């Protein structure tokens, strides 16, 4: 069972997040300020942390910096107030951490925490395999069983991203950020249209569906095992 440390000064928000995470089987430890949070991060050794950007006593990013200096590599999800996303916060994604702007949907938070906990292994293999689907990263070809899947470059990238994170909920925002490299939310529902096409190609007629739409949340590539 994964242990998560939540550092958030708003009690009500913390309560909701804790309840939601506990429902999904996480063990949650809550701290309401930066100093106490830093102590708990050192002593409890959580598997992941959720840190509010603005905290009384000690700023959320300072807490993370202090931990990193002590070589603590716990993955962190930073919660940032709307409109306060600066370069320091954006830089988190480069370091393997993540951020989420408030207000956020709970599913988004859960999906990102799960993604942080199951960071894809950076394998040097040149082929990815999920169930019957195989992706050759050198030849840029995809097959499902004996059938070749004809993919456009962006569809290939999308499938590759999903295969690296199979059986994991991927939200639209995550896909936009990682696959399309979007720094903004487009007016049209880009992700759904592209995902629809990919699904059409991956799940042929008569084949069991692998790409699933989770209503109001995002998509999952299931390995069928």
């Amino acid at each position, binding site marked *: 069972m994964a242990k998560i440390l939540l550092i958030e000064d708003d009690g009500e928000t913390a309560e909701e997040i804790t309840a939601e995470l506990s429902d999904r089987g996480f063990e949650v430890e809550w701290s309401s300020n930066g100093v106490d949070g830093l102590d708990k991060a050192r002593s409890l050794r959580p598997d992941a942390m959720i840190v509010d950007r603005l905290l009384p006593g000690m700023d959320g990013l300072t807490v993370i910096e202090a931990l990193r200096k002590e070589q603590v590599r716990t993955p962190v999800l930073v919660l940032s107030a*709307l*409109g306060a996303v600066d370069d320091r916060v954006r830089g988190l994604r480069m370091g393997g951490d993540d951020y989420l702007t408030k207000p956020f949907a709970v599913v988004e938070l859960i999906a990102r925490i799960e993604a942080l906990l199951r960071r894809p292994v950076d394998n040097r293999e040149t082929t990815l395999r999920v169930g019957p689907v195989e992706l050759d990263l050198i030849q840029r070809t995809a097959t499902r069983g004996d059938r070749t899947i004809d993919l456009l470059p*962006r569809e290939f990238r999308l499938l590759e991203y999903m295969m690296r994170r199979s059986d994991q909920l991927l939200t639209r925002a995550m896909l936009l950020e990682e696959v399309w490299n979007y*720094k*903004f*939310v*487009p007016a*049209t529902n880009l992700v759904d*249209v592209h995902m629809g096409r990919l699904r059409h190609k991956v799940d042929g007629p008569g084949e069991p569906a692998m790409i699933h739409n989770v209503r*109001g949340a995002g998509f999952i590539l299931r390995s069928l095992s």
Partner: protein
Amino acid sequence: MLDVQFIRSNTFRWALAVAAVLAALVIGLFGFIYWKIDDYLITRSDRMILVQVDFIALLPPEQRITAVEDHLKEDSRGVQFAGLFDPKGGRLAGNLERVPEQLRIDDPAQSVQAKRIRRDLGDPVIRAIGRHLSNGDTLVVGRNVDETSEISHVVGEALALGLLPAFCLCLIGGAWLSLRGQKRVDEVNQRVQRIIAGNLRERLPHRDVDEPFSRLAVIVNGMLDEMEAMINALSGVGNDIAHDLRTPLTRARLVLERGRTNAGTLEQLQQIADKAIAGIDQALAIITALLRLAEIENSRRSAAFGSVALHEMLREICDVYEPIAEDKQIKLCAQIAEKLEVRGDRDLLFEAIANLVDNAIKFTPAGGNVEIALARSDKETVVRVSDTGPGIGQQETEAVLRRFYRSDKIRNTPGVGLGLNLVSAIVKLHDFRLLIHPGPGGRMEIICPDVRRG
């Protein structure tokens, strides 16, 4: 309190200083005039004495006594002095009792104390010349120069009479200027206080434009006009935000209220919750868009600007939107003539162009075309997004850039109504231009002028 301020006021101090300088100047001037006149008068009388001495000295000795007496007789004012003395110092003629002790004989004119015969007239200081004559006698001729002191007296009086009024005038002028300045400052202060209190229509008073104070007031008024317009625009935006936020929130509230009374099953309740969340998400999307707009509008030309390959970006946008267009049975194509690069923020430019394409696809009916084109014209790179939709009417080309403006024709199409504002803000940040051509047929152009090097 007023008096202290008055004396402390800079204008008054300046007036005081000017008055002092003026007084010093006048005193100096009068002193110089006095000195010059004095000098002149003495020189003149010295010359006259010399002439007389020479005249008498050249006469034969027997005529000298008469000459002296005649000379004195001619003097009605009693300023002339003369004396002829024998070698032993005995008086032969004239009104001097004896040769003055300090007088150096045979020297040029000098000031000495005269000894008169008539003691009752006193012993004035005179200019005098003494001369040894050929027969051993001594001749002394002198002249009273008290006149000069009289003149100095007159000059002093004139000075006092002239200087005092001038000094007073200076003080009064200074006081007047100072009071006037203070009055205007008070006036301005009152108006400013009213502006601070919230009366944004108030302006500073000004008279004729050529006066510095009035010019300043005109400048400040210009600034106030600009600020008033900006604040009005801002409050207009505030109203728009309130209105646009109220719509989805009202919807969410209604749904929740009705659901609370009517929902019988869990499924119905979930449906209601979904609808309510959708309404709240819409409100949040508006806030996010506004904050993003503010972020872009407030950011300066960033140092992160780099070279952006527009041809690649347009292909990418075309790739992203192609399936969306296809779903709507719209043909999306890119006309890219050549590889063109501009300086800018890649992410922001992507956002702007993607927004235009997004709009074009949204407002073009099925079966239509959307075209993205990249072209060069005179020293400019042009990104053009055109479509076969209704386009924007002539009278709407400016209105569409207003926040939350939504044409009546498209009121039912989903969207926040800030897309073009965002595009416009991004374009402005880059010093590019956004051209909106009137319909029918949408045509938007982002004009990127070449950056001059150096």
